[in-house]
């Protein structure tokens, strides 16, 4: 037990349960047996493959006007999903638009985790006035309705995809911060942390190498669900007309086709379905992870 960091997993095993298998492996075993979670994983896998195809292998330009506007799906064989209000191919838009949608979702979630975990961990670990200050700061952001605040951010500082991702990150971190803080509060007084401290490990090391790995399960679940929320957020902002017109995304497709919905349902329906499926898959996975990490809830 000379290096607390390397010994953390052993400690985890020791304190976690008396079973021989590690909780992570146990969780994985649970997850594999969870049919909805597997379905979610499969859907997400397909979406990611299609998106990679769209982003890297598909050579068509989704902005090209290739046909008459508002061609219904299934009429012309070259454009099985029809065309939009300018006569652009919907399939091209869906293929290429998936990349930015997923990237916004993932990067907004990453930013959320980065801010949330840093603030939550600092707050929970140090406690006292630092905790007080950071939690008050968190509350400021928590009482601001997220979408409204994101809208203001995006409008005030240019509607680019980067800004949209930043805005989503900036408005959604408080919950992650609270969750992280709660986990840190719980773990920081456990034996192995005290032990690490006793042998002189520095604060940074204890926070990131000892406590964080043990606080990960709920954070992973939360991060997964945040990806879904971020994708819905991007769609909502685009729906309100605050999307980035130079980057094709599913949200943008809904937003710009929305005013023609009474005349043409398909340009809104297909990207909407794509968003729904992605978020659905992500939340099935999130639920599956949650069940797997919390054996207590398994029987529900």
């Amino acid at each position, binding site marked *: 037990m000379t290096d607390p960091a390397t010994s953390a997993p052993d400690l985890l095993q020791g304190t976690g349960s008396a079973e021989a298998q590690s909780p992570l492996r146990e969780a994985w075993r649970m997850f594999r047996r969870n049919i909805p979670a597997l379905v979610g994983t499969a859907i997400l896998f397909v979406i990611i493959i299609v998106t990679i195809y769209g982003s890297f292998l598909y050579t068509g330009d989704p902005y090209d006007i290739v046909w008459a506007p508002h061609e219904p799906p299934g009429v012309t064989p070259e454009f099985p999903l029809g065309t939009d209000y300018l006569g652009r191919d919907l399939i091209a838009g869906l293929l290429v638009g998936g990349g930015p949608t997923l990237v916004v979702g993932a990067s907004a979630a990453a930013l959320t985790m980065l801010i949330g975990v840093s603030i939550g961990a600092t707050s929970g670990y140090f406690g006292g006035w630092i905790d007080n200050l950071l939690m008050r700061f968190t509350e400021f952001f928590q009482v*601001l309705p997220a979408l409204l605040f994101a809208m203001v951010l995006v409008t005030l500082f240019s509607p680019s995809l980067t800004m949209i991702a930043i805005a989503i990150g900036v408005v959604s971190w408080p919950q992650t911060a609270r969750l992280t803080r709660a986990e840190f509060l719980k773990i920081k007084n456990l034996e192995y942390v005290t032990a690490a401290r006793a042998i002189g490990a520095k604060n940074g090391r204890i926070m990131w190498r000892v406590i964080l790995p043990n606080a990960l399960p709920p954070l992973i679940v939360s991060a997964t669900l945040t990806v879904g929320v971020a994708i819905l957020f991007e769609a909502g902002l685009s729906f*309100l007309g605050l999307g980035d017109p130079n980057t094709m995304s599913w949200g943008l497709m809904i937003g710009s086709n929305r005013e023609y919905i009474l005349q043409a349902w398909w340009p809104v329906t297909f990207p909407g379905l794509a968003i*729904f499926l992605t978020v659905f898959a992500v939340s099935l996975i999130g639920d599956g992870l949650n069940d797997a990490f919390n054996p207590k809830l398994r029987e529900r």
Partner: protein
Amino acid sequence: MTAYIIRRIFYGILLMAGVVVLNFFLIRLAPGDPAEVIAGEMGGATKEMMDSIRATYGLDKPVLTQLWIYLSNMLQGDLGQSYFFNRPVTELIGLRIWPTILLVIAAQVLAVTIGVAMGVFAARKPNSILSGFVTVFATIGYAVPVFWMGIMLVILLASIFPVFPVQGMLDARLHSADWLTKTIDILYHLALPAFTLAIIYLAIYARLARASMLDVLGADYVRTARAKGASEGSVLFKHALRNAALPIITVAGLQFGGLISGALLVETVFNWPGMGTLAFDAILRRDYTTILGVLFFASLMVVIANLITDLSYRLADPRIRTGGA
């Protein structure tokens, strides 16, 4: 309890002050000069007119002075003059806040009652089809974009089968009708938007109610009640639901901010004359004073909702009634 309430209110005021300062600096950080926006709305202005606009709206003073003026005016109930509408912001919000409160509360009530009912029924038979349906429905309701659902409902229930009105809160022709006619018409207009907004949260409550009911139904005291021969209804509603209420109240409070965000989208789809549509107008016109005002009131609604949640939590759970903050 009274001391606790006072402490909470005082704390809420401090929180709001922080929020105001945060928003104020955020808006001042944004590129662009409000005076230019005002001049643009008027159709252009000369240099001298720009200076006079800056003087009129106090934009020629240092930022900290402006903040000080803003805060001290706020204490007197003055949130400034809207750049776009050229009217006091408080007056604009005063007209729009009630429709939003009505929509949000109606949606919350719908979501909690229907959601809890679904959850309770599902919990009675955890392995039934209904129970599975609740789980799946909960995930779907959460994954569907709310504005999308709104548009679909408009098309279905207002265009194809015209059962409900599509837009607004009151038929334009009824502006001077008697209160009963008005109330009925408002409820009629409220149905679709409130239901749309409720759908997302309905799923959350259904899940939550199912989970906590399962917990509670397995607990000793419920078994005892059953053993004593209490009726099923009495067991469900008197014993189990009362205890399942705690997590539901907590989540209902936490969801309030999300509800207001959802209301923003739903108001846009249904042309509901609330704060969401006002915020949208203000944002699209860079009407800074109105944006600040709307952010303030939206946050205030969340703070008040949190306070109410806190208090109801204490009322519902006798154990923490005497505890500290």
